[in-house]
């Protein structure tokens, strides 16, 4: 992206949507969250017919700041290559909404929020949430914004899971759906990596059984290790090798356990910067929500049944050749189920050696295909 493009301002708004206690979020577990707060950002302008809204669903550790500048880190939004004027999700054409997921830690009610019943942070007394609960909270927000039908719901990774859940639960409330580098269920390997992360957090003495906020401490070491392990899964072997190889931090080995290799230093940095912006309990809750996700199981074990009502949704799925976290075979299963359900499904596997994180990076084929898919769907929908 050129500087000229970055300089073009995006009409940005948002805030926190507060739901009255008589409008609780009903969770899959049977619990309810009263006084739900949903933090969100919008980009672009809603047209008069309210037909140009695009909901973006964020991944595990991301947030509602897709474009513009992040207020706390000062960095560009996490999808500023994709969302903006003239970009694939064109804020000159679409009204983009992104909200922090329930259970998150960027303003939406989560384990770090204050429990109105006790006046203390929830900690582990926060109820378990699921991907369907996240989607239900988003649907409440969209309704509160007075939008009857979204033009599109778009998301990568965990965001893609939410897209699939949207199609299953609210097919009449979306016109198009885009799921990128995602899956309809968590595999054993996915669950295994998450369990390593959770155990690292819980093994930190400062976790204090989840009650660290009351003690005024944070399980930073545990959360950093969790992030380091997870970060490896977001990259391909080829990408790591290209970026770092066996390059050393300084001349010669330390003959000790300092970060001799650049890859070690990089991971330590990833871990350290992550703990500044993320809550450890949120990490436990959201990874659990992903592990519990199994869209077929919600529909008698038949994935096609999940999409039975979504036949009119224009679907597009993307995967990356080097993504071993959510490999192409997972996206293919989704597409096969969509075909079996008679839905309008498209699918592209993009050649990339950047691993799972490719969906956040400069991938021209993805960007061109996404732009083409949305523009042509917009034409059918009557968007100018």
């Amino acid at each position, binding site marked *: 992206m050129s500087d000229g493009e970055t300089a073009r301002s995006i009409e940005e708004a948002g805030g926190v949507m507060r739901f009255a206690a008589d409008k609780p979020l009903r969770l899959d577990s049977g619990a309810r969250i009263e006084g739900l707060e949903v933090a969100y950002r919008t980009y672009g302008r809603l047209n008069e017919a309210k037909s140009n809204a695009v909901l973006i669903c964020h991944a595990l550790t991301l947030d509602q700041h897709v474009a513009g500048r992040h207020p706390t880190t000062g960095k560009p939004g996490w999808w500023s290559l994709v969302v903006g004027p003239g970009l694939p999700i064109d804020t000159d054409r679409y009204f983009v909404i992104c909200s922090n997921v329930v259970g998150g830690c960027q303003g939406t009610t989560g384990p770090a929020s204050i429990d109105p019943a006790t006046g203390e942070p929830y900690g582990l007394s926060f109820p378990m949430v699921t991907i369907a609960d996240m989607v239900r909270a988003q649907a409440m927000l969209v309704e509160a914004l007075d939008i009857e039908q979204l033009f599109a719901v778009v998301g990568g990774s965990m965001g893609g899971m939410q897209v699939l859940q949207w199609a299953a639960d609210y097919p009449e409330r979306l016109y198009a759906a885009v799921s990128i580098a995602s899956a309809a269920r968590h595999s054993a390997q996915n669950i295994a990596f998450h369990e390593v992360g959770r155990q690292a957090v819980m093994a930190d003495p400062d976790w204090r059984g989840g009650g660290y906020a009351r003690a005024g401490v944070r399980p930073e070491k545990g959360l950093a290790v969790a992030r380091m392990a997870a970060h490896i899964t977001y990259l391909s072997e080829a990408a790591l090798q290209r970026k770092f190889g066996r390059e050393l931090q300084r001349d010669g080995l330390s003959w000790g356990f300092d970060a001799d290799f650049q890859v070690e230093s990089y991971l330590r940095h990833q871990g350290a910067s992550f703990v500044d912006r993320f809550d450890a309990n949120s990490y436990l809750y959201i990874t659990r929500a992903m592990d519990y996700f199994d869209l077929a199981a919600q529909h008698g074990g038949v994935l096609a049944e999940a999409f039975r009502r979504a036949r009119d949704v224009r679907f597009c799925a993307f995967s990356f050749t080097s993504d071993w976290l959510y490999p192409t075979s997972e996206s293919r299963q989704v597409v096969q189920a969509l075909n079996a359900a008679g839905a309008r499904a*498209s*699918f*592209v596997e993009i050649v990339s050696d950047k691993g799972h994180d490719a969906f956040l990076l400069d991938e021209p084929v993805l960007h061109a295909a996404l732009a083409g*898919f949305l523009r042509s769907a917009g034409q059918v929908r009557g968007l100018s």
Partner: protein
Amino acid sequence: MTQREDFREIARLVRPGSRVLDVGCGEGELLELLGTEKTVDGRGLEISAEGVSACLARGLAVVQGDADSDLDYFPTRAFDYAVLSQTLPQVRNPRHVLSELLRIADRAIVSLPNFGHWRVRLDLLLSGKMPVTHSLPQPWWATGNIHLCTVRDFTGLCDDLGLTIEACAALAEDGPARPMDPKHWLENWRAASALFLLTRGGQPPVVAAPAPAAKADLFG
């Protein structure tokens, strides 16, 4: 790219409003043509990411995949027509692909270059090299065709699989298509390229397609 001569014939053949799967749909020219002229509910299967990407920009629903392995995942009798335009010689297992087409759809429309055409035979006979003709434009080392066949070979495979040839046309490089008897020995010399409308033998299609268009052409 100029429109391939078989697309016009396929468009004539397909009944309005039907469900069509185009296998090996490329950049989606045929699906777009069928969408605008016959208001079909079209889907595509295409092996290249670039092709699928171009289809997405045209608003088509296309899945990236391989005819040899990915037809298996389409539900049985989900389409009125499955189209395989000039792609059969490029698949690894033509016999499997052909029978899959007629599992997925009630009718298959298959077009293919005829290796029995007189010019192909003459070319090979006189030059001793793999023929390069209008229907087979690429040299042997560049072509994707790995299973070339003659019209007689193809009708033999249809017999083998118990398929019925409902109609057949010869496609010429200039001028309109003409109906032909695919089993006539002369046609195996005359047709540069051939188009077949196939159904499963014995059982008539259960899902009734809309009545034929008023102005029926070749296959009316």
